[in-house]
């Protein structure tokens, strides 16, 4: 027996189970995902594991991705819309190593997109799953620190406190000043934290064709929004929900109606506004769109 192993597998190094997690853990997460889908917006407790990265780096999203990913999947990971930031690169490399899956930066090619704080600008389709990394899943947490109380509030559908919070925004600032992690009502029942995405992205969650899964590793919660589900941002009749607008297009690809990041260029006030979604920006530049600071044409994307 041992001789056979030695000849069959020359570099006999112990390897990880497929997608890092052990099978019992995956089953536990999978059961939580099915419940989360059945009760849209409800936070299902799960036995979150230690992952080989610190909390805050997306351990919840990584566990959800590890539980659903298969060899046929193509994985894209974004951090604030960008494919090339440390968090995105290291999670992509992690799954390339432990699950040997194909990775991509192109939104259209991906079957699973793990995201930290953005939803891609390109409309997602039915074959795609969007996995959010969530730091604090409880939308009521900053209003009520006790888990026993927030759980009771969800049970009783008692969301008055959240409306009071939004109203106090208006009283102080003349408008609802919450700009990210803007609370939403899912299918008319659960108030949900959409994770710290800019409120610009909230409308993309509404009746999305893609399944949306949310994983909070430190807080040990999984929740979900199935496709074609009503996701409504909380507001008031006289202060309707509005998304951010930008008074200029992307400086690189001239895209309008997309979410822009401000980039400081020098210490004398120079700045530019560019697409937060790097794939969307590259795609547009490849199609020949030029912003005011685009400079030379891009090389062909490899």
């Amino acid at each position, binding site marked *: 027996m041992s001789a056979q192993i030695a000849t069959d597998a020359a570099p006999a190094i112990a390897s990880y*189970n*497929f*997608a890092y997690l052990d*099978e*019992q853990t*995956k*089953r*536990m997460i*999978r*059961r*939580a*995902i*099915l*419940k*989360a*889908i*059945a*009760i*849209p917006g*409800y936070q*299902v*407790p799960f036995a979150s594991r230690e992952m080989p990265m610190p909390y805050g780096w997306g351990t919840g999203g990584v566990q959800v991705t590890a*539980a*659903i*990913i*298969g*060899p046929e999947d193509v994985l894209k990971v974004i951090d604030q819309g960008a494919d090339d930031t440390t968090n995105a690169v290291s999670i992509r490399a992690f799954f390339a190593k432990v699950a040997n899956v194909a990775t991509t930066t192109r939104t259209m090619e991906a079957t699973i997109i793990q995201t930290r704080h953005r939803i891609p600008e390109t409309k997602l389709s039915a074959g795609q799953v969007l996995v959010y990394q969530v730091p604090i899943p409880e939308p009521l947490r900053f209003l009520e620190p006790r888990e026993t109380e927030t*759980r*009771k509030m*969800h*049970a*009783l559908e008692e969301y008055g406190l959240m409306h009071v919070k939004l109203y106090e925004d208006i009283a102080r600032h003349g408008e609802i000043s919450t700009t990210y992690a803007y609370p939403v009502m899912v*299918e008319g*029942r*659960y108030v949900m934290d959409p994770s710290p995405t800019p409120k610009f992205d909230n409308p993309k969650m509404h009746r999305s064709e893609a*399944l949306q899964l949310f994983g909070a590793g430190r807080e040990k919660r999984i929740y*979900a*929004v*199935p*496709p*074609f*589900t*009503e996701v409504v941002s909380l507001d008031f009749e006289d202060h309707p929900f509005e998304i951010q607008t930008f008074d200029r297009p992307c400086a690189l690809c001239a895209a309008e109606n997309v979410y822009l990041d401000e980039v400081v260029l020098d210490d004398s006030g120079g700045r530019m506004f560019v697409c937060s979604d790097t794939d969307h920006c590259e795609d547009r530049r490849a199609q020949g769109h030029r912003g005011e600071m685009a400079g030379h044409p891009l090389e062909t994307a490899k």
Partner: protein
Amino acid sequence: MVHAAYEGGFANSVLGSQGLFRTLMDAMARPGTVHPVTTLASPPAGLNSTAGAILLSLCDADTSVWLTPDLARNSEVREWLGFHAGAPVTGDKAAADFAVIADPCRLLDLGAFALGTQEYPDRSTTLIIAVEALTGGDLMELEGPGIDGRIGIAPKPLPPGFTAQWAANRARFPRGIDLIFAAPDAIACMPRSSRIINQPGV
């Protein structure tokens, strides 16, 4: 001589479970849609292959399984489940994480299973209903999350009075049970969020 309980598990438990789970996840996220499955497991007679594979992919020592009386008396099925999944079989519907319904015509009281609590609606039973086919029964039209407009599904057989039972289950939302219809060659799901909007068979 090899005992029947040891045979018929997944050929590749890691990827077999993963592949079937993805089908289940897709089916649960899009209620009423029919998802073909290949034969992954060969449980003893009495349990269909799809229901058997679902049990192997979702159940383990952490989940108790309730079996319909015919299955519960079938020692081969119990031993097969014990050997491959390590899942304890329970006689208490209200304590079951999963329930396998081998004879849907005798499924009477959905409310007798674990329904979860208002605080923890996830602590409920998921029913795996072995059906002959996902077409050919009375057409149920569904609405709800995961469904673009409406969708029709006609699993066969279903017990008489199922629509009323389901309406009662839906009325308990967010508490309630979720259904997985397991035909020999396909899967479809009906989570508690789905509403039947017609009167099937009337």
